[in-house]
């Protein structure tokens, strides 16, 4: 997603205006910003801090505390693989190794062309369909390495995609 610095500033201001008078708004603002840009641009920290009467350090501290918030743009497709116990009991470790080999990246990384980001998650509530994953927000259960390959190919073939 390409947005100019000006558009970005405009969007952040609009989000702040929408949320700033609600109780405890910072997480909501960060969700909205990440929803708009796919990540929380470092340049947005200043305006957010100012708009909510917080220090930049506080805003930064909150962004880094939560695994969900990211400070760099994600790949065009985001693959979130569950690494928790129930999925482990059904082969999630092997699936994770397969994903890393197939994409040529480790967890928390994106492929060089920016097609895929690989993220770990700890339980998606799909444990009765382990191993589970989210691909661009869509849930998939009982995923074998072959099925994962097919899903990645479909995503690559599909036009563009989204998070």
């Amino acid at each position, binding site marked *: 997603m390409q947005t100019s610095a000006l558009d970005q500033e405009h969007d952040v201001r609009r989000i702040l205006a929408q949320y700033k008078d609600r*109780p*405890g*708004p*910072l*997480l*909501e603002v*960060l*969700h909205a910003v990440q929803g708009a840009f796919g990540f929380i641009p470092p340049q947005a920290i200043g305006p957010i801090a100012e708009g909510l009467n917080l220090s930049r350090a*506080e805003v930064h*501290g*909150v962004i880094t*505390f*939560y*695994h*969900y*918030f990211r400070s760099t743009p994600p790949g065009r497709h985001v693959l979130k693989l569950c690494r*928790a*116990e*129930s*999925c*482990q*009991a*059904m082969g999630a470790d092997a699936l994770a190794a397969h994903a890393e080999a197939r994409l040529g990246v480790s967890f928390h990384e994106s492929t060089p062309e920016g097609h895929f980001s690989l993220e770990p*998650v*700890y*339980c*998606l*509530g*799909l*444990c*009765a*369909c*382990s191993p*589970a994953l*989210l691909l661009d*927000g*869509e*849930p*998939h*259960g*009982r995923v074998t390495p072959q099925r994962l390959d097919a899903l990645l190919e479909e995503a690559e073939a599909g036009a563009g995609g989204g998070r």
Partner: protein
Amino acid sequence: MTTIYVPGDSGALALGAEAVSGAIGREAAARHLDVRVVRNGSRGAYWLEPLVEVEGPHGRLAYGPVGAADVPSLFDAGWLQGGAHRLALGAFESLPWFCGQQRLTFQRVGRTDPCSVTDYLANGGYAGLRRALSMDPAAIVEQVTRSGLRGRGGAAFPTGIKWKTVLGQPPGRKYVTCNADEGDSGTFSDRMLMEGDPLSLIEGMSIAGIAVGATQGYIYLRAEYPHAWRTLTRAIAAAYAAGYLGNDVLGSGRRFELEVRLGAGAYICGEETSMLESLEGRRGEVRVRPPLPAVKGLFGCPTVVNNVITLATVPLILQRGAEFYAGFGMGKSRGTLPLQLAGNIKRGGLIERAFGLTLRELLYDYGGGSASGRPIRAVQIGGPLGAYVPASQFDLPIDYEALAASGAMLGHGGIVAFDDTVDMARMARYAMHFCAVESCGKCTPCRIGSTRGVELLDHILAGRGGEHALGRLEELCELMLQGSLCGLGGMTPFPVQSALKHFREDFSAHAQH
């Protein structure tokens, strides 16, 4: 017109329900058939998902697991008229797996249209709130206390007593918050309930608000549950539109507002004080207690914090009475528990039963044994902070006290099965790793101890440990147990210690290579 139920539950979606729903729509249109598709919740039989039910003159008949490719043949077989097909299961409610269950909290999940107030009312919904509105607040709290309901989020604290504390605080701003952070592996009952019968949670929170004198409620929902977010948001809007939420609930003059707030992928935010910090828009660092949230919680005001299942059970208690609910269960564990069966299991899913069922019944009668066909060697109960229980203890009854007495804990009721290929030393390492990833960083035993635990276990797994390293691991567990501020650091030792106790051979196995 025929109604076809295709679950919109995310577990069913993960197995292809969306494509099935699309195929049914297309096929019905091509055949000029008058069909209404309802996206219900899941019945909880995940090995049969996508489970489709057809409601017509022949009653309500189930088919599953249905793939999109099966849809034309189902129409060819005349499934709208109850036609025979290899995927036909008959009436879902006559399946042995289902009819032995005691579905109270989950009475509507998978049966009704989740966001339809009309459907909800037609199935007993809002009878509890109506009753509560005619009662004195103290009497509502008394009903909840007498029902024996204990918190289903993990700590099993009596709900009525918590509410009584909040009610007893001076009048003023108070809050009702719902903990929907459900982070434990092997648990999904909160998700299923929010996706399948969100109005029961909304009703439960409204009753809590009226009981303790709170006018604002928040549901703190984990970010990993986008589908539950959509369903909840729609259901809340429907409840507002029908006058069940807002500044004059059902014309009673009482006010109750409700909103969903999203978490952001931090397991620790399921701990109640961390959750409150997060709701206030801060880092989810655990608060030192006292004060209790019931006295000084959200924005410094008296606050009820309850789990989704706890709150969603309240309407039934008000509707049917405390004695009805307390009539189920054993000892001090009253009522029913929606158990969640996961991991290496043939028939994973949700089983709601009165307390007292044994692990063996659950794993074999309901679960059908392991998915791999190999022996089940261990189960982890109660999520990542729960103990591993060996097969020799599968005759234990599922009851808070019985499990605690044997060193395990029931937690949120999730049970994850492992077959005999599991390496328990690796699972112990994972427990420490998870604690290191999720520690809020406030206290040293947890923050540093978990990282130290990972290093020690790496050592052991590399075969360089010996008894000496195991001794150090045991000491570290003791230190974390005694010195941590909250349950994350304080309970991470449980899976590690139980693995050491029951599966010590797995730790020494590595030393021999």
